[in-house]
C-alpha cells in the first residue's frame, strides 16, 4: 500500500472549527501512515489558486480544501492539473475527472440537538448565533429550529449573524443579546456563543466539534461532523485511480458516520432523550430524512 501525498489548503486558521475537522482527520490519517500531510492556513481568496497550483506542481496527489470563495478559479486550476485530485468543500458541482466536492452536512445531528433543546427550554425561546447566512450555516440552524419545533410547537427561535467568521467576543455578545431577549438555550454555530451561555448559567449546543470538554456544565449536546469518511472515500478513489470528480457529500450523512450527535445523557429529561434516540435510529436506518432547507432562517 502506497502512502498518498495530501496537501490541505485552509482559508482560515486551522483553529476554525470547520477547518479543524479536516485538519484533524488528515493528521490522524497521517499518523496511521495512510497519507503524507502538509498544509497552508489563512490563505486568502487571492492566494488560494496559487496555493493549489504550487501543491499540484510539487507533486501532491490529493489536494483538500475549500473552494467557496474561488469556485471558478479552483475548477480552472483542476483543469490545468489533470493528474492531481482535488477534494474541495464547495457549494458547487464537481467538475471534470479530478475535482470532487463535498458539503458540510451535520444538519441531521443539529436536528437531534434541536429536539433536546426544544424539550428542555423553559422560556420557550431558543437562540442561534451564526457567522453569515451561507447555505450550510442556514441548513444547520434551520434543522436545529425544526428539531426544537418538532417536540415543542410553542418554541420561538431567534437567529443572529455576526457578519464574520472570526470574532468570538462578538459571538459571545450576540449570545448575551439573545439571552437578554429571552433565550435559555443557545445553538452556537460560532465559537464564543457558549461563553455567553456559561456566563449566564444556561445551556448551550455546539456544532461541528465536541465543545463539552471545553464548557463541561454548559454544552450538553453537539452536532458533530466527521470528515474522515469523506477523506477515506477520496483516498480509496485516488489509490484506485478512479476519477474523484464527483460529489462526496452523501458520505457526510449520519448513516455513513459523517455526522452524529454527542451529548451528556443526564442533561435532558429521559423522555426527551428517548424521543431523540428513536429519531436517531430512524435516521440511521434511512426511515427518516431531515429536511434540507438552505434558505436564510427567519
Amino acid at each position, binding site marked *: 500500500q502506497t502512502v498518498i501525498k495530501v496537501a490541505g489548503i485552509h482559508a482560515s486558521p486551522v483553529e476554525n472549527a470547520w477547518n479543524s475537522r479536516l*485538519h484533524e482527520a488528515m493528521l490522524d490519517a497521517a499518523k496511521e501512515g495512510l497519507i503524507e500531510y502538509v498544509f497552508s492556513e*489563512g490563505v486568502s481568496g487571492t492566494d488560494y489558486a496559487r496555493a493549489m497550483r504550487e501543491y499540484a506542481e510539487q507533486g501532491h496527489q490529493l489536494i483538500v480544501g475549500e473552494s467557496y470563495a474561488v469556485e471558478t478559479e479552483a475548477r480552472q486550476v483542476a483543469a490545468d492539473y489533470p493528474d492531481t485530485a482535488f477534494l474541495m468543500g464547495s457549494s458547487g458541482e464537481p467538475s471534470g475527472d479530478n475535482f470532487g466536492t463535498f458539503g458540510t452536512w451535520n444538519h441531521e445531528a443539529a436536528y437531534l440537538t434541536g429536539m433536546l433543546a426544544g424539550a428542555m427550554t423553559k422560556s420557550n425561546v431558543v437562540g442561534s448565533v451564526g457567522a453569515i447566512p451561507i447555505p450550510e450555516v442556514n441548513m444547520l440552524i434551520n434543522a436545529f429550529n425544526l428539531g426544537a419545533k418538532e417536540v415543542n410547537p410553542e418554541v420561538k427561535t431567534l437567529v443572529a*449573524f455576526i457578519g464574520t467568521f472570526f*470574532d468570538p467576543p462578538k459571538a459571545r*455578545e*450576540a449570545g448575551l*443579546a439573545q439571552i*437578554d431577549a429571552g433565550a435559555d438555550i443557545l445553538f452556537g454555530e460560532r465559537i464564543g456563543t457558549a461563553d455567553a451561555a456559561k456566563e449566564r448559567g444556561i445551556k448551550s449546543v455546539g456544532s461541528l466539534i465536541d465543545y463539552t470538554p471545553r464548557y463541561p456544565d454548559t454544552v450538553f449536546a453537539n452536532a458533530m461532523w466527521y470528515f474522515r469518511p469523506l477523506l477515506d472515500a477520496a483516498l480509496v478513489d485516488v489509490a484506485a485511480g478512479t476519477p474523484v470528480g464527483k460529489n462526496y457529500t452523501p458520505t457526510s450523512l449520519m448513516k455513513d458516520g459523517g455526522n452524529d450527535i454527542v451529548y451528556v445523557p443526564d442533561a435532558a429529561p429521559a423522555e426527551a432523550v428517548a424521543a431523540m434516540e428513536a429519531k436517531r435510529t430512524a435516521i440511521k436506518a434511512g426511515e427518516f430524512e431531515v429536511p434540507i432547507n438552505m434558505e436564510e432562517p427567519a
Partner: protein
Amino acid sequence: MMELLEIFTSAGIWGAVLRIATPLIFGTLGALICERAGVLNLGIEGIMTFGAMIGWLTVFNGGDLWVGLLAAAAFGAVFGLLHAGMTVTLGLSQHVTGLGITLFASSLSYFIFRLAVPLASSPPTIEPFQPLVIPYLSALPFFGDALFNQTAPTYLAILLAVILAYVLFRTPLGLAVRMTGENPHGAEAQGVNPIAVRIGAVMVGSALMAVGGAFLTLSAFNSFFPTMVQGRGWVCIALVVFASWRPGRALLGALLFALFDAYQLRLQAVLGKAVPYQLFLMVPYVLSIIALIVTARRARVPQALMQPYRRGER
C-alpha cells in the same frame, strides 16, 4: 416599535456596552496619547493583535492574568519603541510605518502563536478574568447588573481615562506632551526634549493599545484566534478624532460606539432579517463620520500631528 426602545431598559445591554467598550477605551486612550504628542500610530491594529496573543500566551504558560496584561503592555511598548524609532528619531512617514507595523505585528503574533501552541481542534483556553464583585454596588437591582458586574480591566479602563485627563491637563508632564504635539520647536525652546517626550508617549500609548488587545483574550474571551481584533484598532483611530483628542470624550465615544454595537446585536433578535444585518454593522462607522462632521469646526487638531521633528533642521 416599543420593542426597539425596550432594549434599552434591560440591564444586559448596559453591561454589554461596558464590555464591548473596554478594548476600545484602552486603544483609543493609547492612540490619543500618541497623537497628543504629535504621532499618528496606525500600528494600533497590529499592536492590539500582538497584545491579545502575548497576554493570552503568558497566562496559558502559567502566568497570572495580571502578569498577562503586563506582558502585553511591555510588548506593546516595544512595538511603540519601534514605531517611535522610525517616525520620531528618523522622522519617517507615520502612516506608512504604522501600516507596516500593523502588518508585521499581526503576522508575527500568528506566527509565534502557531509555533508556541500545539494544534488542537478548538483553540486552548485559559481561565479568564471573572467579574469583580463590588460589595453593595454589584447587588443593586438593575444597576448592579448594568454597571457593576464587570471584570477588573473594565474598571481599570474607565479609571485610566480619568487619570489620563488629569495628567494631560493638570500636570507638567501632560503640558509637555501637549506642547510637543502642538509645537515641538516650542517645547525644545522651553527645555523640554520633544524627541524624548514623543518616544515616551508612543511607548506608553502603544502599551495601552496592547492591553486593549489583551482584554479580548483575557476577559472578553478565553482563547486567542488569529484576526480576532477585527478592525477594532481602526475604530480607535476614528474615536480619537471623534473625541477631539480629549480623554473624557474618548471614553464617551467608545461607550457610544459600543452602545450601537450592543444595540444592533439585540435589534437582530427583534427585527430578524427584515433589515440586512450589514446596515446595523455600518451604523457605528456612519455615525462616527457624522460626529466628525458636527465636531470638525470645533476640534483642535494637535498642530504638529504627523510632522516629524528633527533637531537642528528647519
